[in-house]
């Protein structure tokens, strides 16, 4: 039976957007942990560790996110021996994926701190740990915020792919709504509008952060 597309459908789509945001948040947490590890590896004085980090980034970034989703969706059950829900598969895949990109971004931010900062703080007698804690990392974090917020936007858009493995977020809800209302144009325009409402403010925020950063340098 075909229903008319109505406000109720918009309501359900908005509800599904919660799952988009939830998945984004968890992916960001998971990816953040991985990213921190990768960033540290990349700036390590030990060459093999640096290569490990670089290899991870290259491999993860060289494979489509869809492929990662499917590999974990079909591969995790084999490794873990149990059937894996779309949640877990999506979480792992997104964390691996986001970790590579965040690691690369954060590595760049750490390396952007001029050597003079290291030299100046060392000349003041600070230990390596103190240098990191009081001088280097605070500055790196400031530099890192705009591109990280920018990547958050990418992450929100990327969660749409979780629909393909059956995860019911905004895009999947759109597909389901379409299959009952048969109004693809309307449905997907509304879906796009909701994504836009989530992403655009973040994009603008990232830009204003970057401007503030540039002015104060």
């Amino acid at each position, binding site marked *: 039976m075909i229903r008319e597309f109505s406000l109720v459908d918009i309501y359900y789509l908005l509800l599904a957007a919660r799952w988009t945001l939830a998945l984004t948040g968890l992916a960001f947490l998971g990816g953040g942990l991985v990213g921190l590890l990768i960033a540290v590896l990349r700036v390590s004085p030990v060459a093999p560790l640096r290569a490990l980090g670089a290899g991870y980034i290259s491999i993860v970034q060289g494979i489509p996110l869809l492929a990662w989703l*499917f590999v974990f969706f079909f591969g995790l059950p084999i490794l873990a021996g149990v059937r894996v829900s779309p949640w877990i598969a999506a979480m792992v895949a997104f964390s691996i994926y986001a970790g590579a990109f965040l690691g690369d971004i954060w590595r760049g931010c750490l390396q952007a701190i001029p050597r003079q900062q290291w030299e100046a703080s060392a000349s003041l007698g600070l230990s390596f740990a103190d240098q990191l804690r009081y001088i280097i990392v605070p500055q790196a974090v400031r530099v890192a915020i705009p591109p990280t917020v920018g990547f958050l936007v990418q992450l929100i858009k990327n969660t749409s792919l979780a629909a393909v493995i059956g995860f019911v977020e905004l895009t999947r809800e759109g597909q389901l709504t379409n299959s009952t209302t048969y109004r693809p144009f309307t449905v997907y325009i509304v879906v796009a509008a909701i*994504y836009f409402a989530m992403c655009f403010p973040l994009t603008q925020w990232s830009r204003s952060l970057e401007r503030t950063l540039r002015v104060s340098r």
Partner: protein
Amino acid sequence: MRYAFNFRDIWAQWPAIAEGIGVTLMLTAVTMLAGLAIGALGAAGRVYGRSWLRTPLAAYVEVVRNTPLLVQLFIIFFGLPSLGVRLDAVTAALIALSVNLGAYTTEIIRAGLEAVPRSQIEAGYSLGLSGVQVFRHVVLSPAIRIVYPALTSQFVLMMLATSIVSQISAPDLFHIASIIQSRTFRDFEIYTVIAMVYLALALILKLLFAATAQIAFARR
């Protein structure tokens, strides 16, 4: 229960995989050219155009970059028919991919255009060159040189993103993977193999771009 990995069945399907690679490469090549053209025009419009041109272009860039490619694809393939425009999967894929890439290339090239020092442009005008001639000979070439790394990175990302068109059953590499999956029931193996093929394609593409840079930007 131990899972018996079986990759042999996958290798037996290599003709289908090769076809998929062909389609993916075709999609990538056409999208790259279209994206470059849209980007050059869009960037020029945003930098040199009047507000009646700049505003719609800004809207285009913001809308495309703040919505997922998958949804854009669905709008074009599933949505347009209800407005009377019926497209086959490959055409819809090319349109969606090009429109998407165009928004990114517009911004990348725009940054390049704005990076060319103003006195270069004034020198061009002062020699009697017209606006179009200044753009073509003085601005565009240095701008592309500056943004070449960012541009080619975006192209590689786009090649990987073509996997999305499998969701409207366009016969690309990723779609072939799902077909092979239904034939052999080797889920994990097929997607692992496909992942490695994409990785190889990405690497080859990066090498090609590096080689092109050597040739195109060489001093003659």
